[in-house]
């Protein structure tokens, strides 16, 4: 058993870590997810050898990642949740009383130059990390699960309305951050 763990850690550890890091965007949480996955794999004898070890481990990892994301979304300060319910007032920064843009969105395009693209992605990355953890988490989940909104809500135990309000707020935050740090910068 010990040998198995060592082999898996060496052969698949980096892969599993990157997979988790791309979804959790936090090295410590990604490492925890890999450890939880290997721990679950020794407690669970369902590996039949029909699929590759990597495929099997990745399937376990996906569940571990969702567990961590669910915790992150639920363990938020109460003030955040109250704020979320008052979704109409929280958008005051962007619109006036009659619903017009206070500041009109600016043109935002992917640069053609490869080096500039890299810079753009780095800035977007830091903008995602600046969002409240809850909003960043659901925003990244949405990217992974594409339009499978129903499943995200089921996994997280939140309503569809709650999910789209959070996604809307995440996007408003991201575009503002990009306008400030990319266009203006």
């Amino acid at each position, binding site marked *: 058993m010990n040998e198995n763990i060592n082999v898996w850690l060496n052969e698949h550890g980096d892969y599993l870590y*990157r997979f988790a890091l791309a979804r959790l965007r936090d090295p410590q949480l990604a490492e925890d997810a890999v450890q939880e996955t*290997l*721990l679950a794999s020794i407690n669970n004898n369902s590996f039949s050898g029909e699929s590759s070890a990597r495929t099997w481990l990745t399937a376990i990892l996906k569940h571990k990642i969702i567990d961590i994301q669910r915790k992150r979304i639920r363990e938020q300060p109460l003030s955040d949740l109250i704020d979320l319910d008052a979704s109409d007032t929280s958008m005051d920064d*962007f*619109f006036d009383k009659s619903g017009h*843009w206070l500041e009109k969105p600016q043109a935002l395009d992917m640069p053609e130059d490869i080096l500039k693209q890299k810079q753009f992605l780095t800035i977007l990355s830091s903008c995602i990390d600046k969002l409240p953890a809850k909003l960043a988490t659901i925003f990244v989940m949405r990217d992974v699960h594409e339009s499978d909104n129903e499943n995200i809500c089921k996994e997280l135990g939140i309503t569809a309305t709650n999910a789209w309000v959070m996604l809307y707020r995440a996007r408003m935050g991201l575009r503002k951050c990009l306008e400030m740090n990319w266009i203006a910068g």
Partner: protein
Amino acid sequence: MKFMLNCKQASQLISQSLENPLSSSKRIKLKFHLLLCAACTRFRQQLRLINNATKRIRLETENDDTLQLPLESKTRIFQQISSHIESKNH
């Protein structure tokens, strides 16, 4: 919702439409608003760009061979799991 959307309502529908198809009445109202409103059209473009770029960030992280689980983390994980197995065997 009245036929003429304001920009706040339009921006909400634009965001929603990225998750689920809108009902046909909402879709028509939004289309009409976008015909007349350059600001919301730019907003939609911004959201599409953010979606595409976010996917790229994720895929690049997944495929970045230079990102590795640090050796000390591997050692730590190995020790933790070994001690877990031992405690189960006793």
